[in-house]
């Protein structure tokens, strides 16, 4: 059970406080309800570029990192298609330094041309390092537009292409900040060995006078139901053929999201999973295979991916894979198998909650989903999943007309 207190400032900022008396550290986690899905299709990659600019100085403080490091702290951030999350971990006695820094960049940025110029270059190098200069690195740039035709999940967080990042202007930066980086669009979590009153006082002091801004209404285009099997083959100079089967699955708030998660575990989480056993160990069709979900807030994807063994064709794999998927739609999985999946989920969650930062991040995420207490209800949702649920969701998801298949064909240089 993770305890927390919640309060809201007049400007709309939601604040969570999680007390942990065993740690000498404090976490300040800030979730902004903006991600790549909120971008304009002609200006993709912007939410992530913006995350970099958040470290380029704020209205009253020339540099973000230096004072935090001086207080013995460290920080980082990440952007996904759904959210942008910033965190600071500092010795508890220096909590106020983190609040001073985070509140100032929520108030306003410095918007220096130099920062924009440099971070554009840094992000372009990141684009190259992670997506272009790695074998199979561009797979997600290809798979997303295959699986999504309308919803903004069709582009990756890093952006559709480098050109969009090169073309970002200061005007874009300012507009983006004004629209999304407001107290009413943020959730703050403070974790550590403090008293609630003390936390309230500090938060009120540093965040209370930030103008609330306008809460915008998100109106994303809904992805139409997929009604056909989609397939794309790309040729790349890689050593091995690779495959990515992407199945649409329910959005995060749907209880069936959890069922799909368990289904992906049954397929390919561990060395006792169905795909691993059959495709790798028994038939030796693949050198590696796994199944996982994207964890998206809107309608997401359940992915089955892997690499073919030498001399095996995509057709051979396809035939055997569908036998396994079809079997899941005909027969309920056994109680032993379900029990095995559940104990792994429970164990993983217990380890995840070992970390203070993880707890703070997850509290913010669940609050975004509607209620921070979701963090404590999740275990029960998993426990209640039956083999009947898994059968139902298998039938719903693991259909050919719900599938987008990307094949990476290895070609010689």
């Amino acid at each position, binding site marked *: 059970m993770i305890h927390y207190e919640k309060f809201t400032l007049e400007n709309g900022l939601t604040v969570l406080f999680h007390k942990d008396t065993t740690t000498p550290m404090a976490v300040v986690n800030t979730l902004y309800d903006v991600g790549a899905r909120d971008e304009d299709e002609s200006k993709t990659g912007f939410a992530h570029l913006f995350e970099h600019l958040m470290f380029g100085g704020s209205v009253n403080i020339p540099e973000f990192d230096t004072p935090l490091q001086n207080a013995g702290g460290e920080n980082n951030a990440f952007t996904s298609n759904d959210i942008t999350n910033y965190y600071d971990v500092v010795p508890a006695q220096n909590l106020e330094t983190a609040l001073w820094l985070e509140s100032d960049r929520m108030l306003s940025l410095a918007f220096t041309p130099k920062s924009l110029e440099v971070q554009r270059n840094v992000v372009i190098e990141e684009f190259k390092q992670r997506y272009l*200069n790695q074998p199979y690195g561009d797979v997600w740039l290809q798979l997303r537009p295959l699986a999504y035709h309308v919803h903004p999940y069709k582009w990756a967080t890093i952006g559709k292409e480098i050109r969009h990042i090169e073309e970002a202007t200061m005007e874009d930066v300012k507009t983006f900040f004004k629209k999304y980086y407001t107290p009413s669009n943020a959730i703050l979590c403070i974790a550590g060995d403090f008293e609630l009153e003390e936390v309230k006082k500090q938060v009120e002091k540093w965040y209370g006078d930030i103008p609330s801004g306008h809460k915008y209404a998100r109106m994303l285009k809904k992805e139409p139901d997929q009604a056909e099997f989609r397939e794309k083959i790309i040729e790349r100079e890689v050593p091995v053929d690779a495959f990515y089967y992407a199945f649409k699955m329910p959005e995060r708030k749907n209880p069936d999201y959890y069922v799909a998660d368990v289904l992906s575990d049954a397929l390919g989480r561990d060395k006792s999973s169905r795909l691993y056993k059959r495709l790798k160990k028994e038939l030796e069709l693949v050198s590696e295979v796994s199944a996982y979900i994207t964890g998206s807030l809107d309608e997401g994807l359940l992915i089955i991916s892997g690499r073919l063994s030498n001399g095996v064709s995509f057709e051979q794999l396809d035939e055997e894979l569908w036998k396994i998927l079809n079997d899941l739609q005909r027969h309920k999985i056994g109680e032993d198998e379900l029990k095995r999946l559940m104990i792994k989920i429970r164990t993983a969650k217990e380890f995840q909650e070992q970390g203070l930062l993880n707890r703070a991040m997850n509290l913010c995420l669940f609050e975004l989903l509607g209620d921070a207490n979701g963090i404590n209800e999740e275990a029960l949702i998993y426990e209640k999943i039956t083999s009947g649920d898994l059968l139902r969701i298998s039938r719903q998801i693991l259909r050919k007309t719900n599938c987008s298949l990307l094949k990476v064909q290895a070609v010689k240089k």
Partner: protein
Amino acid sequence: MIDRKNAPSIQGIASINFEKPLVFDITKGNHLFCMTNVQNETAKFELYFDAGSIYGGTETASVVNALLLSGTKDKTSIQINTEIDELGGFLEQGVSMENAVFTVYALRENILPIARIVRDAIENCVFDTRELEQSINSRKQKLRVNMEKVSVLAQRSFRQRFFNSSEKYSRVTNPEDLDFITQEELMQFHQQHYLKGLKKMVLVGNFSQSEIDSFMDVFGAWASEETPTFETGFENIKGYAHLEKKDALQTAIRIGRHLFNKTHEDYSDFLVLNTIIGDYFGSRLMRNIREDKGYTYGIGSMVSEMEHSGYFMIGTEVGKEVKDQALAEIKYELDKLKTKLVPQDELDLVKNYMLGQLLKSADGPYSMMDLFLSVEQHGLNMDFYNQVIHSINAVTPERIKELANKYLNWDDFTIVTAG
């Protein structure tokens, strides 16, 4: 109105509460360490074997490690893995040059039964030929994929040139090497380096004395009786080498020199110098090469420790067109530390940052155990960290400059680029 221009006052870290684990003898010289006081029901056990990649043929150590749960005469690998999954166990296996580690994470109530399954599987592993073949084939594929990465190419070339004086430490695996591995050599390695190679056992979790005793019973018979001999006094090929990779968009850079580990008198002060150079976000290299020039997504430096030695290394990936500029800027930053004193405010910031990070790395029993293992490896105890705190607080700009002149001479470095 609140004052947003000036930073709130900060409080330094006066002392850190370092805790030692419980220590038990497996045999004379080999120990079991146990850290309790875990706040929830998580637990782990970890086995350290004298089974690093310097032993045996190229890749023998890694293949044996990967096949530890590949089956006995009674059970297949699938059965073994299923049994462990039924108890919610998560495994981690790894081989470094000088050690091999086998780790299990699970809920405390399940971890002893998992330990027994693991013991039986390792003890009676038959190195089934089909399992071996599968493992070799997927390793070959993985290796071929990895060799497409400039970072891996640079790292391999660096290792060859850096440990040039030692055949065992400098070797890297090529896909064709894997064709020559025999079942017999694996079994022999397994017998010698696992079944008689256990160096230490590590437990984290709220274990009772009787549970600790049970772990001792389960694995104790594997305790090593030999004292391993690790090499020291490596010589590197100094100077620059480039590996061309057609069509690469980036160039990976590795720059390093041999150094020392925690047992050396300059170690603690050098850590401060290393942090200034490239071990935090505001480091000289990050500021110059990422935040000023935008040549890279990231650049860093590290001090890496080995059993009897250690080394200093800088690593990054930069745009292919700016490779030479990046190298020149790295050299410029190192030279500047040799000629100009570090400003006091920068040094103070680094001190505060390092103490904060040390506090964080002492937060909780899992982290505390890692801290302990990192001193225990060199025959030191937790007092070492109090000395580190003292050294960090005491180090001066003059001392940093002295160390820079002693250890940062460009001509001493092995420099490799790939891309």
